[in-house]
């Protein structure tokens, strides 16, 4: 044993210099074995860390690089401005995005500006050469040269091989129906941002934020479906254009509203514009008169007056009001258009459109009740819909007796016509006030939003009066057989330079169809219509707005799925009798 151990125990002879060095480095009695093991451990640790980092990175590369290829943005269409399609209620496209190439330049990378200007103006003749030169000579990194060029132009410019000139595919909003649907849709600017109408509303719904974040690149956004019916819209617009030409009016407007849901099935304000050419929309004569204009609606407001009286229970259809003489109030005289010189019953006041009678009814109800009723029907507050454009009604600051007298027959209170439509619809549909909407809405949704404003019996009586007015009143020219139309006319003298004009009028016509089971309310409004030979010099509503309304109903009723019923009994049997039965 000792023979074996001896050589191991013997310390090998070392040169003294090495010994000195080791003693300086490690101390006198260092255990070299333990040290060596510790060092190896340290080395293992270090390598393990390095390799695990490499392994983790490898896994990361494997995972991340895959998803990167998937989300790789296709070069050439970097701009995130996709908008959802807009459809009508039957799924017809009203607005959609089309990809069009746009031309841009990177002036810093251009080699020969003169050559570029020469070649580009040759292909795009409408490009201004001096302006182009100015843009290309600037030291900016990126300039648009022309948005929305044709594919042919693109390929020609591409084949010229100019350095620093490139194309980006951009989304461009396209309105295939042109001016057919203008005010409802609104329009967008060159960067596909909504400027007006539903387009602007869409931006307010979070689309603008998506654009800002650069996320709206894809076309997969769900389309927006409007309540609008393109066919009805066309029919209404066509008839309004005809009417505007026939009566040489400065404007014609119309609305079709579903009285059960508050959906706006059609809205036209002529003159309108082509949303593909947004510059037209700047013309102030092309405003949307139905929401951004406020007007004194004239005799159609008598419907509110009469409804208020009937709903209070103090007045019945048999009540009589004196209309012998013009009504005097201060220095004002209230006249009738066709004076009757006798006491009139409520239906007579409505069908003869007696201003004196309406004023007496309103005065019998009192100022506060009148004001409260109009407030309840939303006629005194700004009406807000999806459209960003809306106008505040012009309400008298101090509401005195004279105001109640004039507002009773539709003067002295200016409302947006759409607002009046909303109010009349509530009188027709059984007494529920529904906020009008441009989006599709079901009847159940509408019911949850609705607010009862008058009794169902009052609504039936109002429909009876509307029908009576068509059977033997001022709206007889709208009686299209088979659709049982009820209606109220209105003719308001326009205010010119602060005075009521004798020559300029605004005529309107509210029609409900069918009057016994109301489905739709139609408003026709003509601004400054003129008399025609057929109208015997008259320019009141009954001679222009009413026949227009009749023509519109004859065209749209089949489209709206209203079944014609011929040989229906007159209003007192059809509406009033059924009302008594249901009681």
């Amino acid at each position: 044993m000792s023979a074996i151990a001896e050589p191991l125990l013997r310390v090998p002879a070392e040169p003294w210099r090495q010994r000195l060095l080791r003693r300086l480095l490690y101390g006198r009695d260092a255990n070299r074995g333990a040290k060596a093991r510790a060092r190896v451990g340290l080395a293992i640790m270090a390598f393990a860390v390095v390799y695990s980092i490499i392994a983790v990175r490898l896994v990361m590369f494997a995972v991340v690089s895959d998803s990167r290829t998937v989300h790789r943005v296709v070069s050439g269409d970097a701009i995130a401005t996709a908008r959802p399609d807009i459809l009508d209620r039957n799924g017809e496209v009203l607005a959609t995005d089309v990809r069009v190439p746009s031309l841009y330049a990177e002036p810093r990378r251009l080699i020969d500006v003169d050559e570029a200007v020469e070649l580009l103006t040759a292909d795009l003749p409408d490009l201004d050469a001096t302006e182009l030169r100015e843009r290309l000579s600037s030291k900016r990194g990126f300039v648009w040269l022309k948005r929305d060029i044709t594919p042919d132009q693109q390929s020609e410019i591409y084949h010229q091989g100019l350095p620093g000139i490139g194309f980006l595919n951009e989304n461009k909003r396209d309105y295939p129906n042109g001016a057919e649907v203008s005010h409802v849709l609104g329009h967008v600017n060159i960067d596909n941002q909504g400027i007006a109408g539903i387009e602007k509303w869409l931006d307010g719904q979070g689309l603008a934020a998506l654009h800002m974040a650069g996320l709206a690149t894809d076309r997969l956004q769900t389309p927006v479906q409007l309540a609008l019916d393109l066919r009805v819209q066309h029919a209404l617009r066509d008839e309004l254009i005809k009417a505007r030409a026939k009566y040489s009016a400065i404007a014609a407007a119309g609305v079709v509203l579903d009285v059960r849901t508050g959906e706006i099935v059609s809205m036209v304000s002529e003159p309108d514009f082509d949303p593909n050419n947004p510059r037209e929309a700047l013309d102030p004569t092309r405003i949307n008169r139905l929401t951004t204009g406020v007007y004194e609606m004239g005799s159609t407001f008598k419907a509110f007056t009469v409804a208020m009286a009937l709903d209070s229970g103090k007045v019945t259809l048999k009540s009589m009001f004196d209309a012998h003489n013009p009504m005097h109030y201060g220095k004002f005289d209230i006249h009738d258009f066709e004076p009757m010189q006798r006491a009139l019953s409520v239906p007579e006041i409505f069908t003869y459109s007696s201003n004196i009678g309406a004023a007496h009814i309103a005065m019998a109800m009192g100022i506060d009740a009148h004001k409260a009723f109009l407030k309840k029907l939303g006629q005194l507050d700004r009406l807000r819909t999806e459209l960003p454009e809306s106008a505040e009604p012009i309400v008298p600051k101090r509401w005195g007796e004279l105001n109640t007298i004039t507002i009773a027959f539709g003067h002295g209170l200016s409302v947006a016509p759409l607002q009046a439509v909303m109010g009349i619809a509530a009188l027709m549909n059984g007494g529920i006030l529904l906020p009008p909407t441009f989006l599709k809405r079901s009847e159940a949704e509408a019911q949850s939003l609705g607010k009862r404003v008058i009794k169902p019996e009052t609504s039936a009586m109002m429909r009876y009066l509307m029908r009576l007015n068509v059977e033997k009143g001022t709206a007889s020219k709208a009686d299209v057989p088979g659709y049982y139309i009820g209606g109220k006319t209105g003719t308001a003298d326009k205010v010119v330079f602060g005075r009521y004009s004798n020559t300029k009028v605004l005529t309107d016509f509210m029609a409900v169809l069918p009057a016994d089971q109301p489905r739709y309310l139609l408003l026709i409004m003509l601004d400054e219509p003129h008399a025609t030979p057929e109208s015997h010099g008259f320019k009141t509503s009954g001679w222009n707005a009413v026949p227009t309304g009749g023509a519109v109903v004859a065209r749209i009723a089949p489209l709206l799925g209203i079944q014609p019923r011929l040989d229906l009994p007159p209003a007192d049997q059809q509406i009033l009798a059924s009302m008594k039965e249901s009681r």
Partner: protein
Amino acid sequence: MILRLLNFVVIGALVLAAAYVYRIKFDSTVQAEHLAKLRSEQRHERDRIAALRAEWGQLDNPARIEALAKRFTQLKPIAPTQFDTLDRLPEHPSDDARAANDDPIGGLIGTPEPLDSVTGTIPASIPDSAPAAVPSIAPDVAVPAVSPDVTPDPAPAADEAVAPDVTENPDQ
């Protein structure tokens, strides 16, 4: 010895595993590229569909259709009197009636009433010899041939009721 063998086996397994992983990785890259390509194609197609839909919208525009209809057809807006409900249709002729009579619709109507009773479909006087040629509504549209087993007898009567309406203004 066994240890060394094991070493070789492990090394072999390692090489195989590496090769396998490489293949999976390569495959997945190919797939990812394929996917990206499909996606871009899809995008392209969707853009084209949108462009076509826009074009269709333009072609399907009611104003355009109306102009074309006015120019090339003699169709008129539908009148309220032209609607009726299905439950007011006369009954379908029974098989017996069809077998017994070679004029089933005529047999259904019968001729108990004298012919001077004018209705919407029976004009004031039916000529004894019904016109052989059915006046076609649009001359340049091919009229489908009437199959011989369906008797065309009631057709001229119905057409006569429609015809004046159509021929009123032929220059439209």
